[in-house]
């Protein structure tokens, strides 16, 4: 599933990952149904690659990110990081592994403790993971704050004194503190203003080059993902429906959902007269997803088969995976 001729090492491999949440009401009530937040996702991320994960709200993209970090326990499936089975690891080893995997959250307002100074916030991961003594930790904090483009004199301030973009920089510094290899970026720029968004995107790219980071970039904004990522996975109701190299996805999208998503995202160019494919209806509830192909209720090109059988994710061209009966399928 890797791209190009260079032998690329997969840093992360996720296979058939599932996360089901039972819905319960009351203290002793039986389960009333299951939310299939992530329903059999498989993907790989190569070292130093940025994989984009797009989809609409409720499609399970954030849950997938949290599963990879083991912030949630998967119901089924395997996660292999650097050759190690993440799910089978004992506590001590898992802790060491967690140093290498970090996350940047969407909301820079609620993800920073308002009672901590910037210095304390950035130092916290170093203390938790017992990295070095106090002077070396302070030195590291100083390095980090410069790395993300903030000033030394801002170290003693509290999060509320910063703008959204600066807060996101603090969040990035925290994520970088333990020298991670893989960073899950969960909508890191969605809450920011347009001009600030660009600063943070550029910072993420610089850091990736400099530190050799691998990103899983979760977003609903297709143009941001297109700009940042080499490959993109499109998710719909817990399943990946298409996965391919960015350029191919944008030029020759195959899955009707991807096509519709691309056509629906507005492009800042009034000279362009595009035909908009307007999908009907809302995203169905993941509590009671449609039978067969999850997308069949909104698909403009639906067959009878789609309503009954579930298509599998199949490689229709090298590196281009699609989950749709119109392509391949045996």
């Amino acid at each position, binding site marked *: 599933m890797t791209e190009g001729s260079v032998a690329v090492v997969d840093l992360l491999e996720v296979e058939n990952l599932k996360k089901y949440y039972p819905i319960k009401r009351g203290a002793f009530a039986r389960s009333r149904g299951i939310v299939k937040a992530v329903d059999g996702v498989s993907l790989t991320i190569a070292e130093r690659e940025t994989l984009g994960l797009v989809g*609409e*709200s409720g499609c399970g993209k954030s849950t997938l990110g949290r599963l990879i970090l083991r912030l949630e326990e998967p119901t089924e499936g395997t996660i292999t990081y650097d050759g190690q089975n993440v799910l089978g690891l004992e506590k001590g080893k898992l802790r060491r592994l967690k140093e290498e995997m970090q996350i940047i959250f969407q909301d820079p307002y609620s993800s920073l403790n308002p009672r901590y100074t910037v210095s304390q916030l950035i130092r916290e991961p170093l203390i938790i993971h017992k990295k070095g003594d106090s002077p070396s930790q302070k030195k590291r904090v100083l390095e980090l704050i410069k790395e993300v483009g903030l000033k030394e004199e801002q170290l003693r301030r509290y999060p509320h004194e910063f*703008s959204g*973009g*600066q807060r996101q920089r603090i969040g990035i510094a925290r994520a970088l503190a333990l020298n991670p290899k893989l960073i899950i970026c969960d909508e890191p720029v969605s809450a920011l*203003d*347009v*001009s*600030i*968004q*660009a*600063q943070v*995107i*550029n910072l993420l*790219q*610089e850091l990736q080059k400099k530190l050799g980071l691998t990103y899983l970039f979760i977003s*609903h904004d*297709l*143009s*941001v993902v*297109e*700009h*940042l990522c080499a490959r993109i996975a499109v998710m719909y109701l817990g399943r990946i429906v298409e996965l391919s190299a960015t350029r191919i996805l*944008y030029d020759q999208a195959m899955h009707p959902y991807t096509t*519709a*998503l691309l*056509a*629906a*995202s*507005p*492009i*800042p*160019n*009034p*000279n*362009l007269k595009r035909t*908009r494919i*307007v*999908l*009907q209806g*809302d*995203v169905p509830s993941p509590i009671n997803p449609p039978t067969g192909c999850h997308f069949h209720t909104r698909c403009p090109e639906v067959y009878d088969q789609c309503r009954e059988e579930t298509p599998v994710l199949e490689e229709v061209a090298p590196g281009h995976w699609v989950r749709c009966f119109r392509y391949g399928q045996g």
Partner: protein
Amino acid sequence: MKNELLRIDGLKTYFYTNFGTAKAVDGLSLTVNQGNVLGIVGESGCGKSVTALSIMRLVKSPPGRIETGKILLEGQDLLKMPISEVRKIRGQMISMIFQEPMTSLNPVFKVGDQISESFKLHQGLSKREALNRSIEMLKIVGIPAPEKRVNDYPHQLSGGMRQRVMIAMAVSCRPKLMIADEPTTALDVTIQAQILDIMLKLKEEIGTAIILITHNLGVIAEMAQSVAVMYAGKTMEYADILELFNNPQHPYTCGLLKSIPRPDLREQRGKPLDAIPGVVPGLMNLPRGCRFSDRCNRVCERCHTEEPSLFEVAPGHYCRCWLYV
């Protein structure tokens, strides 16, 4: 030139707080023509929403106050009207769609009752007639099974549905002007496309003019005929849509256009974005002279001392910058 529907002249809306005066809108002039879409773009805190609230006379006072200016709707100054007159105009002549449909719908009333209200108030219809018209409206905005949905409460609807209800309310009296304040920001892209489509369709059918407030340049490009770019309470640039995107003049507009990823431009792929440095200044401590001077890449000495006015750089294209004097 088409008929002028709304004209704002030198509008100033200030907020008086314990920390000083925030000049949220500071001398804004705009015109909206009949049946046109005017886009107002800008980042958070630039005064877009306060402009909308000022037109509706909904600025909370205190702390807010509309200082000076005129808001002429077909020649009538809304600011000179007694509030009882303004109430008649709200909903009937001008209506508004807000960003967050959950907080702007009343959670304890059925949506049917909420849409009916404006029929009863402005057109004097009976309860039954009003409800029937509400069902029609829900059908127009594309809500399936409208005769059942009128009995739903807002929490029973999805985000896109709620925004449709808001639109149904807004267009119920066939207003001449609809102000949409970030109508699709809280929605997913496929739902956003649906809502924008409905707005355009209704615009054609009813002939409503729209003021579309958003930070999303893509939405503006697809919807608007003319655009005002706002920064810290002032219009920085104003032009029609093609002119603004093809021939932007103000450094702030250029900066905005360059700082967004452009999937339509192949040559830009992989290159870093041209970000505007710095942050949007707080309204209490604006830089001296031009408000954008501390972030501008083409700043000169004059910018730090004197504030430029809006110059006409080409017919119908206005720009607030010393570069074009």
